């Protein structure tokens, strides 16, 4: 009899207890992400997944990104810039402690910046720190950074996840046990499954509103759908199945957030390779592509056509899509002028994401219309990096460049699309040196126009940031100015 009672308890009472809990105000949040971080050091890998979990939750930099993409003070409460623009004095917030209880001060800033710019650094964005010539501790809360020349992007660069401030004492185990200064403390990592954060009760700034946050890694799109629908997960960041969003929109339990992100998706073109070294051929490519058809077919309508490598939500954006409008007749004419009246054959190497694989099929058929025959090969990321990115053995490829404000890659002649324009490089040098906002905007516009006129790549579309959020969760970022899931002001509504 007792046994039956026990069984009864398990079957009836246990779920009851849980349902009671579910009705109380929740202070824990489960966030679904598609990719798991390889390790937990944001300064030691490019993986966006690391920042998605840790940026501004666990680790903070001197400056940080706000939800609208503007740069606001972080660990530095203010800064003075010398009149020639080469010396920055950062005034650090007082009373900032690492999660292990030690104080964060100027020597940690020096350590972090020196580590990131060192000769043998493994920082994936070494270029961000290239102009720093010296970092000097003035006192506990004051640090001076000297640059070789003025850099208008400097404060922006310091906001990246790759520039967060770390402590020398905890650096050795940072990949497994990250110790930061943020509003959440790293609690545990069950590899392959989840990462758990808990509230930092000694946080120096405005404390977090949640007690616990769990990031669950769900790579399969249909599993992501099921986990949201079953309410195992409260928020799914960068939801991988856009075809299912309609169902969430129709369901009162969920909100769908459609914002902007920094992913310019482009048909990258090997500018050094025949026949793409001919401007007319590249121009013909641009006119052969129907951007809206790709957005509709590959992205289920989520995305904004672009005519240059720049984010449409950026204040300095110039709409140049008209210059690459869909015009197959013009495209054929240009090909004939370039000496390819019957078209030609080239390769299209596609990495795994759906935007590339689905988009690639559509582009291939559009190019066939104008006589360009493409041989599609599907590659894994590791293969793509080896063959296309490092080996430059490709004609065309499709990839989304997700770093914010990354037009600077066009000034690197050794970069995989091998575009080498002295004019563009000069504009970028001037832009970096310029600190006047009006001048900067004008230079950014020039830069966009040059690469549009040169048809360096086929500019396809800006990706949308799609998140599915439980309708009672407040404070999730709609846009994604950097790869981050900032939970510092997220909470549950009653």
């Amino acid at each position, binding site marked *: 009899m007792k046994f039956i009672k026990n069984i009864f308890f398990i079957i009836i009472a246990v779920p009851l207890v849980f349902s009671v809990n579910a009705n109380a105000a929740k202070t824990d949040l489960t966030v679904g992400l598609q990719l798991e971080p390889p390790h937990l050091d944001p300064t030691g890998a490019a993986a966006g997944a690391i920042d998605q979990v840790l940026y501004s939750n666990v680790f903070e930099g001197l400056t940080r990104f706000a939800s609208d993409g503007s740069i606001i003070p972080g660990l530095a409460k203010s800064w003075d810039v010398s009149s020639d623009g080469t010396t920055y004095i950062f005034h650090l917030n007082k009373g900032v402690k690492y999660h292990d209880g030690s104080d964060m001060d100027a020597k940690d800033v020096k350590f972090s910046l020196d580590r990131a710019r060192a000769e043998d650094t*493994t920082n994936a964005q070494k270029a961000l720190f290239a102009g720093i010539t010296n970092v000097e501790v003035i006192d506990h809360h004051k640090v001076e950074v000297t640059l070789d020349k003025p850099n208008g992007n400097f404060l922006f660069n310091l906001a990246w996840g790759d520039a967060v401030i770390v402590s020398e004492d905890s650096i050795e185990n940072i990949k497994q046990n990250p110790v930061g200064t943020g509003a959440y403390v790293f609690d545990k990592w069950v590899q392959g499954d989840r990462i758990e954060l808990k509230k930092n009760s000694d946080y120096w700034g405005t404390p977090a509103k949640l007690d616990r946050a769990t990031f669950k890694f769900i790579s399969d799109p249909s599993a992501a759908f*099921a986990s949201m629908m*079953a309410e195992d997960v409260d928020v799914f960041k960068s939801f991988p199945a856009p075809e299912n969003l309609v169902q969430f929109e129709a369901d009162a339990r969920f909100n769908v957030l459609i914002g902007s992100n920094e992913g310019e998706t482009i048909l990258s073109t090997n500018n050094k390779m025949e026949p793409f070294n001919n401007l007319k051929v590249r121009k013909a490519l641009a006119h052969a592509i129907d951007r809206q058809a790709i957005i509709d077919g590959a992205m289920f309508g989520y995305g904004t056509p672009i005519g240059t490598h720049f984010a449409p939500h950026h204040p300095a954006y110039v709409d140049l899509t008209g210059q690459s409008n869909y015009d197959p007749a013009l495209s054929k004419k240009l090909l004939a002028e370039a000496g390819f009246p019957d078209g030609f054959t080239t390769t299209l190497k596609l990495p795994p994401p759906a935007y590339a694989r689905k988009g690639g099929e559509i582009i291939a058929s559009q190019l066939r219309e104008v006589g360009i025959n493409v041989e599609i090969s599907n590659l894994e990321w*590791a293969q793509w*990096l080896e063959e296309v990115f490092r080996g430059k053995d490709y004609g065309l490829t499709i990839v989304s*460049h997700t770093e914010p404000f990354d037009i600077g890659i066009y000034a690197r002649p050794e970069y995989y699309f091998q575009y080498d324009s002295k004019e563009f490089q000069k504009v970028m040098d001037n832009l970096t040196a310029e600190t006047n906002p009006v001048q900067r905007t004008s230079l950014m516009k020039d830069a966009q126009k040059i690469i549009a006129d040169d048809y360096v790549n086929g500019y396809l579309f800006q990706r949308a940031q799609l998140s599915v959020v439980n309708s009672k969760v407040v404070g999730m970022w709609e846009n994604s100015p950097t790869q981050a899931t900032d939970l510092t002001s997220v909470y549950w509504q009653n």
Partner: protein
Amino acid sequence: MFEYFIRRIITLFLTLVIASIVIFVSLEIIPGDPASYMLGINAQEDTILALRKELGLDVPKIERYLMWVKGMLIGDFGVSYTYRSPVIEMVSERLWVSLPLAIYALILSTFIALPVGVYAAANRGKVSDLSVMGVTQIGIAIPNFWFAMLLVYLFAIILRWFSAGGFPGWETGIFFGLKSLTLPAISLALPQASILARVMRSSLIDTLNEDFIKTARAKGLSYNQALVSHGIRNALIPVLTIIGLQFSFLMAGAIIIENVFFLPGLGRLIFQSIAQRDIIVVESVIMLLVFSVVVVTFIVDIAYVIVDPRLRSSIL
């Protein structure tokens, strides 16, 4: 006997050495580099080289192979390039999910399949037999990941009895651990049970045509009595062989089901490591699997000889 034993041991070592070479070579020649994977598409070439050095990838391949083998001999399977944790720890953590899942699925499939197979054999040619054959045919034909999605849709999304996936960890209690493995185990068990039921049925039918069954019938046992007391035991041998094969499949082959239910199992570890070119993890995990299969075969070979005198005379 002793000579045979020595010969088997030499074969065992040669198998392992050859396996290690094949594994190492085939993984080294696939294109891709863990360092450039880690650093992404803004990385500079010098940073990639610095990371390769830090990971020990700049060492010549032969030397790296020898270091790997040397490490394994003393039980050190290396450190993951991407996760930077010891491979052996990662594997044992994943085994806590994969092993219980495989056992759970195997128990389910065996407990369903054997009675069903016996029932079908006992009713050979009747409607009940034909319907069992039909249902198991469907069970084999349905892809298990699709069946898994149906289960998720019904039990997680509509009825809300189960989570759609994930594994809370054994520290939350055996009940919750088993609960989260239930839908995956059912999806894995369905095709296995269908195969097993058919094997059980045909093996039992074969056995029932043997002389000793006829003798039993002649002694006066009814068909069903003969089937239960003499047939089943003798029909189990091929069934056990299949169960053994299925178990090794369930251990490493549950990748797709692990993905559907986002379980942190061994299959997903291998899958992820291949994508990230975390070669050392792939190499070591495959080597561990090879090792366990080879050792089990070795033990079975020796056991045969000890048990079966006919084999002993043939080898000596």
